[in-house]
């Protein structure tokens, strides 16, 4: 018992005061892309050609990135000869609409809060059922991290539950494999109304690295109505937390 207390004292208090302080993220982390405001003078298309998923689009010299298809590998930035396309350390990426993920140089339209009725229902207590529908398990790993003492998701009233019957919504990861499609739809049907759907990670949004495989659905697509998109491959835990708190209206005005 004394040993346990001594170790507890040594390990210290590690829960991060999110909302009060900005989290420290690795400097090489690739978050929100910074795109040139002026149309690119070069006609090289190197950034577009470097992306295997067609996430980079160029319209009359203006570069745009679809964060729903982007795996944040940074190959487009490496390929850019002028160095005008870069990735910032900004972890805030989640949006409410699929279209908002198609970003240009303008400010990213971050997720707005739920409407009044839904916020009243879920704002202070949100129970989610996670469904892994393909993917590589990295998304699940970094969702599990939210339960550790650093992130302590429970303090915001958000919790992952075992049964869809106890849940207010689904958090879906993976490109939705053929073999998981019916299990995903069954799980959705088992969640009582009203319910939310969160697409977490490049796979769930657009198929991720598996986009184009005949064995996958290229993400949730039209299978379910999505309320929140969290980009990343996998999304950083802070990105997920930021998205969830925005959805619940806890970050309004920030």
């Amino acid at each position, binding site marked *: 018992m004394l040993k346990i207390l001594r170790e507890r004292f040594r390990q210290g208090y590690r829960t991060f005061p999110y909302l009060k302080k900005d989290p420290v993220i690795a400097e090489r982390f690739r978050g929100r892309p910074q795109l040139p405001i002026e149309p690119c003078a070069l006609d090289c298309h190197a950034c577009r050609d470097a992306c295997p998923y067609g996430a980079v689009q160029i319209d009359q010299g203006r570069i745009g990135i679809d964060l729903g298809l982007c795996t944040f590998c940074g190959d487009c930035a490496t390929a850019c000869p002028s160095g005008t396309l870069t990735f910032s350390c900004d972890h805030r990426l989640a949006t409410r609409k699929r279209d908002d993920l198609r970003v240009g140089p303008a400010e990213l339209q971050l997720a707005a809060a739920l409407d009044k009725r839904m916020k009243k229902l879920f704002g202070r207590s949100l129970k989610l059922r996670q469904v*892994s529908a393909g993917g*590589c398990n990295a998304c699940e790993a970094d969702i599990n991290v939210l339960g*550790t*003492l650093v992130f302590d998701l429970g303090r915001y009233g958000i919790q992952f539950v075992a049964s869809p019957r106890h849940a207010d919504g689904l958090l879906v990861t993976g490109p939705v494999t053929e*073999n998981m499609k019916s299990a995903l739809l069954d799980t959705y049907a088992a969640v009582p109304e009203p319910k939310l759907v969160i697409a977490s990670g490049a796979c769930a949004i657009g198929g991720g690295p*598996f986009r*184009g495989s*005949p064995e996958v659905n290229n993400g949730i697509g039209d299978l379910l109505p999505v309320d929140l998109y969290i980009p990343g491959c996998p999304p*950083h835990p802070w990105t997920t937390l930021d998205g969830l708190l925005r959805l619940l209206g806890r970050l309004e005005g920030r």
Partner: protein
Amino acid sequence: MSRLKPVQILRNGDSVPLAEVTILEMDAFFTAVKQEAAAQGRVVALFASPAGDEFDLFALIAHDWQGTLALLRTRVVDRYPSLTPELPAVHLFEREIAEQYGVVAEGHPWFKPVRFHRSYSAGDAWGRDQQPLIPGDMDYYRVEGSDVHEVAVGPVHAGVIEPGHFRFQCHGEKVLHMEISLGYQHRGLEPLLKGKPGPATMQRLETVAGDSTIAHATAYARICESLSHTAVPPRAEAIRALALELERLANHVGDIGGLATDIGYLPTASYCGRLRGDYLNLTADLCGSRFGRTLVRPGGVAYDIDKDRAEKMSKQLALVTRDTKGALALFFDCPSVLARLEGTGQVAMDDAEALGLVGVAGRACGLAVDARLHHPWGAYIRNFDQAVFEETGDVHARAKVRQREIVNSISWVKQALSSLPDTELSLPAGALAPESLAVTLVEGWRGEVAHVALTDKQGAFCRYKIVDPSFRNWSGLAMALRDEQISDFPLCNKSFNLSYCGFDL
């Protein structure tokens, strides 16, 4: 053609022109496979590749203590006599071949689909061509009797975890047998890898199993380097090994935390959960991704560790090391924890050997299987002599292997950060040799990751075979559950911590 040998002897990372690999008669092939296996051989892979209307069957058998890999090849049309009755380690490989190409293993005692997808060739081995494929739809082993009941779990489980289906045959609380049916995570990876390698190829290999990104990425990079005869700079080799050991640390520490959670020993559970993230953050310091995405590239690595970064990482590692040791000491000093671990979920050494278990699960049963020791590559050549083995084959042994490997990996990373060779970071990997076969082994944190690639006339991949350690080890979990209480399943499962997506591909 007298120079053709019936058996090609390769080493980890070798490539060979396909024309030099003799196509044996079927009888001679199966005799040779059995002989190689009997001579202290261990089956690493058995797979098919289309050859016109027929199929090439390749067997890769490791002779660990010689550090060699025997490669055998034959040609089959639509069936062959199953090896499984004599060599149980190939049971899943034969089922996989049948599912992928409709080639039937006659006399297979357990002949069922593996991942529930359509055949890549004309025929379905189970005649399901016109029927919808439903994952998990197969005959399960059943125990009859008045007091016997069956428990079915999954595919959607009660936590943030991948999908899989488990069937327990129980008598009261006692599990007589458990059968595992997977395939829900099947993304069709192997066919996606065909063609000329590009940026997407690496990303698909990095996501075979997200927690083993460095292991699979390294195995793939080495395939490209072997086929293009590129010598990787020593600095890149050192950074790859450092990242692989960080991956091992994050997962092993996380697993000890997971065991603590399942037992209800909260101090270690909460410390290890946090510490796992600290190791992931060290990997992110290196390459920006907590899972090591984009670090390994054919020809080298994409990110350097300069002096400042090495110092910063060393400092952080020292802090994390202290906390890790404290959290582990609490766990392994606590009598009630040890009582829960010892004797639970035992796998006998003979069973482990017959099933071909690898990695942590194999070493916990006393099997000397560690590619870093027997088939070293890159920075592990001449530098690795710390393989860890336990003998009891229970949950405790699997926890102990992890605990001891954590200590070893910490000193490896510490040493590596202070002694990075002063060379370039990357060399351009050229075009792949046409009509060749390359094989690489990498000891990931879970166990041996094996990749085999075949190229066509244009030097594009015409077949890419991935063997994740989970493919070998899920049968081990089924064995561990025999005669245990059904309530021991979570603990046993955690002690193996196998990958669903790595198995499902």
